[in-house]
């Protein structure tokens, strides 16, 4: 019951945060000096076309009216809006923004999820082993690696990996997309190309998608493992200094058992940092997607920003914000389940 109330209160906070971010981005992009109408109609348009386009995009109306139209407060007069679940139409392609986001988001999620799985599988054991002997050789090496990896430009490392793995060693495919240019994409079942290929009986396409994701995943996992190793090492060192570990050592438990006990208690703050990083990567995968031309949400955001496509920008920011906040909420719930002190103390 307490958990239920906690979740309800957090969901309310999330709703308020999403609303404030939506308002912030809506007014921010309209108050900046950019002119999306000029970008759309081109430099040879007549004043009538300019005025007509501006009216069609509702940019000539007062800001609050534009907000009301976007929210869908006048469904009969103007058309559906956010309250009816419509994110608007892209000013560049005229297709519904929600449809485009639905098309691009799964690719980003595949990239990020795979990268995080690889990063955690490598980084968490490294962090634990390093923390077991502080200031030892392994610890110093691991800490230097974490400092190094956290300071790297991910887009540059993507290019370096392309040079070595594609050009020099011919191990990876050309960075031309999440599938080879001549391959037909699998029919949409879940939206995730990897799963769809498996579900529709084309495992070869699934393998090809994995092959194309190989380098982007390596690049992202390398960058993301830096902070993860650092946090795991810090948390395990802190947990190792507690009294119950001292007692376990005094009882003569083996190093392996001690490590297992410590990990269970260092798990919660580690999970928090992984969740924060995962949420951050929803918007932070832009560079890797751009380098490898994966066609994910980040590239869509980039294209919308450069084209001054306001509904698309709003839609992407809304999606990323809701996604990140829901992930933080899920992690907090897991944290409460793992550590009952959190819920009971409220």
């Amino acid at each position: 019951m307490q958990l239920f109330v906690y979740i309800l209160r957090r969901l309310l906070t999330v709703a308020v945060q999403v609303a404030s971010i939506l308002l912030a981005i809506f007014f921010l992009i309209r108050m900046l000096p950019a002119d999306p109408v000029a970008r759309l109609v081109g430099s040879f348009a007549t004043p009538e076309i300019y005025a007509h386009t501006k009216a069609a995009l509702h940019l000539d109306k007062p800001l609050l009216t534009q907000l009301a139209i976007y929210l869908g407060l006048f469904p009969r007069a103007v058309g559906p809006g956010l309250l009816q679940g419509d994110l608007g139409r892209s000013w560049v392609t005229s297709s519904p923004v929600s449809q485009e986001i639905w098309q691009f988001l799964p690719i980003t999620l595949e990239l990020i999820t795979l990268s995080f799985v690889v990063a955690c599988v490598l980084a968490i054991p490294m962090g634990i082993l390093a923390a077991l002997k502080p200031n030892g050789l392994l610890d110093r090496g691991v800490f230097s690696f974490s400092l190094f990896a956290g300071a790297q430009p991910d887009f540059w490392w993507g290019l370096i990996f392309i040079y070595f793995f594609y050009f020099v060693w011919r191990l990876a495919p050309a960075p031309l997309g999440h599938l080879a240019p001549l391959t037909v994409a699998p029919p949409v079942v879940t939206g995730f190309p990897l799963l769809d290929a498996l579900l529709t009986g084309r495992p070869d396409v699934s393998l090809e998608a994995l092959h194309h994701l190989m380098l982007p995943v390596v690049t992202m996992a390398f960058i993301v493992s830096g902070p993860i190793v650092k946090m795991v090492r810090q948390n395990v060192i802190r947990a190792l200094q507690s009294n119950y570990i001292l007692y376990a050592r005094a009882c003569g438990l083996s190093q392996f058992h001690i490590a297992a006990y410590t990990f269970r208690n260092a798990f919660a703050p580690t999970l928090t940092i992984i969740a924060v990083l995962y949420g951050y990567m929803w918007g932070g995968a832009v560079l890797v997607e751009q380098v490898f031309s994966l066609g994910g949400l980040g590239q869509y955001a980039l294209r919308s920003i450069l084209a001054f496509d306001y509904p698309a920008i709003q839609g992407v920011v809304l999606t990323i914000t809701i996604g990140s906040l829901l992930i933080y909420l899920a992690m907090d719930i897991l944290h409460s389940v793992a550590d009952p002190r959190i819920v009971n103390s409220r």
Partner: protein
Amino acid sequence: MPPSATSVSRIIHRAWRGTPLGLGIVIMCSSLGLAVFGPVIAPYDPQIPVSAAAEPPPRLRDLAPLILKSLQGRLANPVHWFGTDDSGLDIFSRVIAAPRVDVLIALAATGLSLGAGTLLGLIAGYYSNWMTEALTRASDVIQSFPLFILAMVLVALTGRNVGNIIVTLAVLFIPVYLRLTRAQVLSERTRNYVEAARATGNRELVIALRHVLPNSLAPSLIQAPITIGAAILQTAGISFVGAGVRPPTPEWGIMIASSANSIILGEWWPSVFPGLAISLTVLGYALVGNALENRYG
């Protein structure tokens, strides 16, 4: 008298422990030096093409004789140490001229956000009314935005020049310092010296600025080098995707972007050297930040 083995080994041990900080300081000072003198000491003009096609850098075995000859002044034209890119621009000149843009943007943005963020954090932590609550919530909202996308939006929509990039990055980093300072101020304002200052008749504002603020700056100052590194990465990132500084300004991100297409054809040198520069510089600032954290954190 010869020094005893103990003192020599202690010196070596301390030097070994201080090496990362030393390296970081060297890199930091080099980046500042290049930011000031880079375009002046560059052998070629960073924005004027000097060769017809992309030339690779000199081979390793030719390197030593070339260095000797250039020191003796026997070369007609300066050597293209890092080669030239597809547009014929000398890469070495552009790499050492770029800190004037990258490092300057990072330092200015960090300085602005540090100054504004600590002052705002002081106010938010020292006075507790609805206005400071609203300020803290607004700062949380800014921090919940996807950082990179917001940076792109702000720069692309306000105009892609250096000033706007500085202001954008400063605004995006203010919440970090606001939160750090506010947390420190909240714990400092209950201390006895604040009560003593109040008892001697100081105004609240004077107490806040003269007594509480200097004691709350430590976490922010430790965070500063890390923010500088993050700002360099952000600047290079948004310039790489085309939403940052305009070409042909020498800037590490743009240099990597303009040569990204030719790397799959085997021309590695226009992309590798700018990236190495970014990597080393940010690492240097991270080392300094780490040393500060170990000493004062």
